[in-house]
């Protein structure tokens, strides 16, 4: 493009200012990417939730247990295909900082209820035969360099059992989709039941069930909760996505917080770049007048200003997003287990690029319109 040289030459006119503006863009886009992935991680539960999965918890609170005996009654509710149950174990591996989610599972229906989490058949068979067996997500296995056959001690303070619980790693699962959580650690209900005090025996944390038809979910949920109404342990059944959304709400309105910070970042960036472009245009008033005098149209002048601000936005935004690509996996490793997996998806990168382009155009628009409306005679007089 024959005008590229002019645009480039103008961009490089004040190199320190250019670097600082590009730097602002890069940092803002990096921050934007961090906010986006954290926001996404918090809302992931709702996004990855199976449309045909329901969660049944104790109506009082999820920390209150419910009887295992409910399982058969739930299974009998018309429309329910599979039922499994989980307990939260809340342990750590060797040190407090080595936290990751551990669940007591019912192996019988685990794979039917969570078909997106894949365990090789031979490993699953070994797990079923091993009372102290465990299956772990690929990310956690990678984090601690675990391999099949390893002996893994986990300590918890939740169930009044002193000392470490020892497990044999029999399997490693992978998610079908990139967003599937690969950080969980599963072990057998029977081993748990055997070791916990009498008061906890026969008590599970929550049920997870699949229904034949997702459209039938509200009816099934209602039927389950009615079944246990007026019992000592009333239940609350909801779709997995509602459950996940309510879970996130416990942390506060994360989405609002992220949108607020993102908006502040966006407007700050707009002001910084807009100010840079305004100064740049003001410094070049007489030059722009010369362009107009020798035959460049008002639209050409607007184009030059917009092209400059867009170039700054694309270079700065691009650097910020490349940095995000490098740094977010590092952050994901540091946060392992604290949040669901943090992923910078191509969609987020494109959205970030869109934000950069929009900021570039908006920040150049006002100075550009000013340059466009410049009267040559007045501008030349300012020399």
């Amino acid at each position, binding site marked *: 493009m024959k005008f590229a040289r*002019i645009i480039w030459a103008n961009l490089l006119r004040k190199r320190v200012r250019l670097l600082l503006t590009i730097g602002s863009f890069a940092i803002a886009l990096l921050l934007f990417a961090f906010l986006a992935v954290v926001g996404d991680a918090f809302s992931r539960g709702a996004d990855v939730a199976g449309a045909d999965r329901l969660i049944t918890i104790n109506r009082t609170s999820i920390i209150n247990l419910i009887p295992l005996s409910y399982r058969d009654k739930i299974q009998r509710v018309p429309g329910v295909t599979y039922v499994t149950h989980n307990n939260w174990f809340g342990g750590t591996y060797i040190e407090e900082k080595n936290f990751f989610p551990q669940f007591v599972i019912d192996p019988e229906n685990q794979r039917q209820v969570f078909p997106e989490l894949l365990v090789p058949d031979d490993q699953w068979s070994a797990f079923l035969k091993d009372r102290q067996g465990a299956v772990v997500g690929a990310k956690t296995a990678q984090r601690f360099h675990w391999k099949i056959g390893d002996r893994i001690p986990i300590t918890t303070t939740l169930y009044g059992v002193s000392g470490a619980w020892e497990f044999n790693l029999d399997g490693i699962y992978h998610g079908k989709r990139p967003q599937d959580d690969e950080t969980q650690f599963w072990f057998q209900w029977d081993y748990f039941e055997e070791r916990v005090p009498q008061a906890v025996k026969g008590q599970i944390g929550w049920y997870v069930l699949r229904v034949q038809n997702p459209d039938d979910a509200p009816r099934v949920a209602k039927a389950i909760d009615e079944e246990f109404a007026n019992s000592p342990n009333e239940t609350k059944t909801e779709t997995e996505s509602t459950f996940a959304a309510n879970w996130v709400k416990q942390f506060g309105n994360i989405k609002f917080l992220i949108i607020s910070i993102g908006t502040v970042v966006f407007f700050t960036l707009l002001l910084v770049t807009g100010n840079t472009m305004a100064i740049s245009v003001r410094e070049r008033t007489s030059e722009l007048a010369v362009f*107009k*005098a020798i035959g460049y149209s008002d639209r050409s002048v607007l184009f030059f200003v917009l092209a400059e601000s867009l170039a700054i936005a694309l270079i700065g935004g691009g650097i910020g997003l490349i940095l995000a690509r490098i740094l977010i996996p590092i952050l994901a490793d540091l946060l392992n287990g604290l949040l669901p997996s943090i992923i910078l998806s191509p969609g987020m990168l494109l959205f970030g690029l869109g934000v950069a382009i929009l900021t570039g155009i908006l920040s150049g628009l006002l100075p550009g319109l000013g340059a466009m409306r410049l009267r040559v005679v007045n501008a030349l007089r300012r*020399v």
Partner: protein
Amino acid sequence: MVKVDGSGGQSSLIQVRDLDKTYRRGGEVIDVLQGLNLDVEAGEFVAFMGPSGSGKSTLLNLLGGLDVPTRGHITVAGDEITHMSGGKLTEWRARHVGFIFQMYNLIPVLTAFQNVELPLLLTKLSKAERRSHVETALGVVGLTDRMHHFPRQLSGGQEQRVTIARAIVSDPTFLLCDEPTGDLDRKSADDVMAIIEELVGKHHKTVLMVTHDPLVAARASSILHLEKGVLVEGKHTSQATLAGGAA
């Protein structure tokens, strides 16, 4: 011949009729040009003189389509420019007018070559054709050896020569020079004027120039004075006489 009484015929390259230009400053109305007439034939070299604020630059801006008159008509090579829209006027300027400013007004971040090439970027010429035109224009002003220098690496006289090259590169119908030597020493001013004379004499360009300097004005074929908003023909004094008088 240059005429200021409105008696010129249709053959004039530039024809100005009953031109008024009024400015408002605060509540005050200032009549800069009043019923001005002018006829300039192709290939003429006209100098406009007059005291500061007499309207010389205003007239030049009107002739160059940079400003619009309050009343009257300007016709250049058959194009009536006073009623053109802003966009049309911009296109017209690109085709017909070459500007030479007192302060050179080169783009500091572009080389001499790139500055001269600017008007050609608006044309459909190929890169090779543009290069050829730019080299020719820089050749006319004797700066082919400085084409890759930036303005800051050139002297004032050289910068003004680059401005002249930029003004002539697209072969415009006429050149407008606003105090072209106003910021130069005598030697550089002589060099610049020699180039302008060559453009008129050898390349048959039409040049309209505003100047305060009688020595510079003396090199034009006609001198017109702006007095109270109208043009009057000045007495043409030879350069030798002026130089002698100055000495």
